[in-house]
């Protein structure tokens, strides 16, 4: 029997199961196989904050979603077409998001009375009419892998655990993905226990064949390659991309990289990735807390390293005093905040864009810091590199905002040729910099940056610190006039960074009724929404801001061309407030505080509402 293959432009799949069901792994494997096929994609995990919440409970559900397509894909998709539900709890939690008419792939064996009860189902949804309107594939996955692996040496529990590979096999069939990359990966991962590798491969093939053979499936889908720019690609998470961007900046500036950090969700992977790069002379220092993380980085910056600290909101709160020190000592430092849901401990595994105020204004005194934000996982590379470059060029800390959705989400990254990445010019003064009057640590260059004189250089001995400093000489000064000069200078130095920004680019018409202004990860869904609205004949364009401080100098002229402005953001209106003050004009807001990204459809609705 040859089955029908339907060509679709894009598809969104969500894998959901118990924390122990291996959904993250399954999702990642599907993503890799899809990436290799040449689709564009975005993927995002979604897991509970417990390590292993009790099996079968709603709290214990872990999920992974990806969207892939034959044209550019900007988000991991709003609502999935296909939901893999490995147990009743997973179905309970995620059913509400499934597209009308979407497909459900369920492990029927997990729908036991006990599990149903734990998930709060009154009766078995696979057997009553709860799922009317969806296409349901109820498959006894546990049983099927049990049969397929009867001969294996594995324990029953170990065999049961391969059911995720069975599900993956079915999906591979359903979306016409190759098995080979996953087979190779399994062999490598379980090189030391070939029996486990083998069992997983068998389970996956069994799933694939099940799709191919049984009659319950009638259609599979193909998604053509996307027309991506030519080049080599790989899939990358935002946290990986930050790592690479910073390591690239270190190499391109001839610096060693020092990372002072303290683990925190969802930023920890940057620390993990970096600690694996000892052969890049990367010095990771897992500090006793976030304060020591940034303080050690400040020390390393003083001593001449490319210094970095990484964290998330609560950790950022702890760093604010030290950021002030970096500002006043005018030392280069990259501070990465992978934002999560607040306030306080809040929702550690959920995303939010609510640390913008904190980044720009969250310090005592007048303490200006450049702030930029990445828009998608691959952009984290560019932004991290840029942050490091600006920090060293202007002798200033720079804050890079990412978020849990970018940091843990992934998408294809066009791998740059390292030779094409521009060098970062660094000059450390040498002994000759000490003039008649001695060395002047707060002497300034044309960008008003002070010299980066490194301990160990004879003749440039000098002291810096957190007390206000006299300009040029760097001596402690509590003189009123000097404080005015220094305050102006610190503000101006940061403001002038805008001089090197490229002119703003509006996506769509340069003039019109509505301009949607985005920052950070809201870019993707707004992009989709603007596209759709535009196609529907609306006069709407998009402006994405990479730099939030300083604001681009052409912001006013660009926005003046539009009647209305809309800022969608996953907070209560932070950029909106800043731009209202900057532009002195009303701004429409679309705010959401649900620990998850805005959906394209939500933005579309808002656009409709504004444009009538």
């Amino acid at each position, binding site marked *: 029997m040859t089955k029908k293959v339907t060509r679709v432009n894009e598809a969104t799949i969500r894998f959901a199961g118990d924390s122990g069901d291996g959904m993250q792994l399954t999702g990642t494997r599907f993503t890799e196989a899809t990436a290799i096929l040449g689709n564009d994609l975005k993927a995002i995990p979604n897991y509970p904050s417990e390590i292993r919440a009790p099996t079968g409970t709603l709290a214990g559900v872990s999920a992974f979603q990806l969207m892939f397509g034959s044209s550019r894909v900007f988000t991991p998709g709003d609502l999935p077409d296909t939901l893999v539900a490995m147990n009743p709890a997973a179905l309970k939690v995620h059913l509400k998001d499934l597209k009308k008419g979407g497909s459900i792939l369920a492990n029927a064996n997990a729908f036991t009375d006990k599990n149903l009860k734990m998930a709060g189902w009154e009766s078995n949804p696979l057997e009553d009419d709860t799922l009317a309107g969806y296409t349901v594939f109820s498959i006894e996955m546990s049983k099927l892998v049990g049969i397929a692996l009867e001969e294996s040496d594995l324990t029953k529990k170990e065999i049961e655990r391969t059911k995720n590979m069975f599900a993956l096999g079915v999906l591979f069939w359903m979306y016409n993905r190759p098995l080979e990359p996953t087979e190779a990966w399994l062999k490598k991962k379980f090189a030391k226990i070939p029996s486990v590798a083998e069992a997983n491969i068998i389970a996956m093939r069994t799933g694939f064949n099940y799709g191919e053979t049984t009659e319950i499936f009638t259609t599979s889908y193909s998604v053509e390659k996307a027309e991506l720019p030519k080049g080599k690609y790989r899939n990358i998470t935002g946290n990986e991309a930050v790592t690479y961007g910073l390591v690239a900046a270190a190499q391109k500036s001839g610096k060693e990289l020092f990372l002072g950090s303290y683990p925190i969700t969802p930023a920890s992977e940057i620390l993990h990735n970096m600690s694996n790069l000892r052969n890049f002379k990367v010095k990771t220092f897992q500090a006793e807390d976030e304060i020591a993380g940034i303080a050690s980085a400040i020390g390393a910056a003083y001593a001449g390293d490319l210094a970095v600290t990484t964290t998330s909101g609560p950790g950022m709160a702890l760093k604010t005093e030290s950021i002030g020190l970096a500002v006043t000592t005018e030392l280069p430092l990259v501070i990465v905040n992978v934002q999560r849901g607040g306030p306080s401990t809040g929702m550690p595994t959920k995303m939010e864009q609510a640390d913008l105020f904190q980044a720009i204004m969250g310090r005592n005194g007048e303490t200006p810091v450049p702030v930029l934000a990445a828009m998608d996982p691959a952009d984290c590379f560019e932004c991290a590199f840029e942050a490091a470059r600006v920090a060293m060029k202007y002798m200033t800390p720079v804050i890079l905002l990412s978020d849990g959705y970018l940091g843990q989400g992934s998408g294809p990254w066009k791998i740059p040729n390292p030779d094409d990445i521009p060098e970062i010019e660094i000059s450390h003064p040498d002994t000759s910099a000490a003039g008649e009057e001695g060395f002047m640590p707060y002497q300034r260059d044309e960008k008003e940056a002070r010299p980066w004189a490194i301990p160990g250089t004879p003749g440039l001995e000098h*002291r810096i610190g957190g007390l206000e400093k006299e300009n040029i000489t760097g001596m402690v000064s509590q003189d009123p006039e000097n404080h005015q000069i220094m305050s102006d200078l610190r503000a101006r130095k940061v403001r002038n960074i805008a001089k090197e920004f490229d002119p703003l680019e509006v996506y769509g018409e340069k003039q019109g009724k509505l301009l949607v202004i985005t920052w950070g990860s809201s870019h993707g869904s707004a992009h989709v929404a603007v596209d759709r609205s535009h196609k529907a004949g609306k006069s709407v364009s998009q402006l994405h801001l990479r730099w939030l401080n300083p604001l681009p100098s052409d912001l006013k002229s660009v926005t003046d061309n539009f009647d209305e402005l809309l800022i969608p953001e996953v907070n209560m209106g932070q950029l909106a407030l800043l731009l209202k003050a900057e532009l002195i004009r009303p701004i429409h807001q679309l705010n959401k505080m649900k620990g998850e990204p805005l959906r394209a459809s939500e933005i579309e609705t808002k656009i409709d509402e504004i444009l009538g």
Partner: protein
Amino acid sequence: MSETTKQVETLHLTRKDFVPDNDVRWCPGCGDYSILANMQKTLPSLEVEKEKYVFVSGIGCSSRFPYYMDTYGFHGIHGRAPAIASGVKLANPDLSVWIITGDGDGLSIGGNHLIHVLRRNIDVNIMLFNNRIYGLTKGQYSPTSMLGKKTKSSPFGSIDRPFNPSAVAAGSNATFIARALDVDARGLQESIKRSQDHKGASFIEVYQNCIIFNDGEFADVENKSTRPDNALFVVHGEPMIFGKENNKGIVVDNHHPKVVELGDKWKVKDLLVHDETNMHITNLLLEMTFDPETPTPFGILRAVDQPTYDDLLHSQIDQVTELRGEGNLKDLFNSGDVWEVK
């Protein structure tokens, strides 16, 4: 001998090389002056180039120290000097990094960083100026102030039990612990030298008189006439003898230190012999600190060799580089599953 003190061509540095132009701004009579002078006197003998010294401090009167040393210096923020200094040392292991802190800076707000830098055994030298008071903020009690102490924030007497700073260091697994006295130049210089020679984190507690807010706190040992009977200067391998007439000594009695009079009953050979490397001798000395029956011990209380964090880090870098080859961006970018769009 540490990397930084490797024999370099003779440096001909003098005390003056470490004296900067700017004024010293402690109160007249402050114990900090003597510590500064002894530091400036001792450094030239350490065979470290002047530009390789970095003095890192927090906030407090004591923490102004870097401004008064003509070397590299970083007057940090309150309590964070050990963390800043760790970054300095890890960035450049060639530097001789000194942390100057106070009982408030190092043990109140900065207590955690202090115990962690000691635990990690990063090769830095720490001097904690213990005046048992917050000087810079004008006289509140500190975590080393004695119970009952009346200060601005404890007008009816402090109810806060004090730390014994050297004991905190010992509890943090410190590899070098010394105690010195602001007015005792010899002891200070010895501590400074030994701590520079020590590979790993060195902790020197300096009893320092704050003439304004806590004058006379250490009178019994500061005062030349009462010092011999109240201070015990320990020397590795030597029996513990003290007293104006060198007539007293320390023995161990039911696991506790006890003062005995040398004479018919007790001979020098009965006395406890100092051993820097023996944790329990160190602990016995530490216990004497607050005991009114025993003298206060000074000198090198503990010194043992253990791998340092900075050495381990740099040798791990070397090992991994050996194993994997020098980091190459191209390989890094292309790791994982790569595909091509043509």
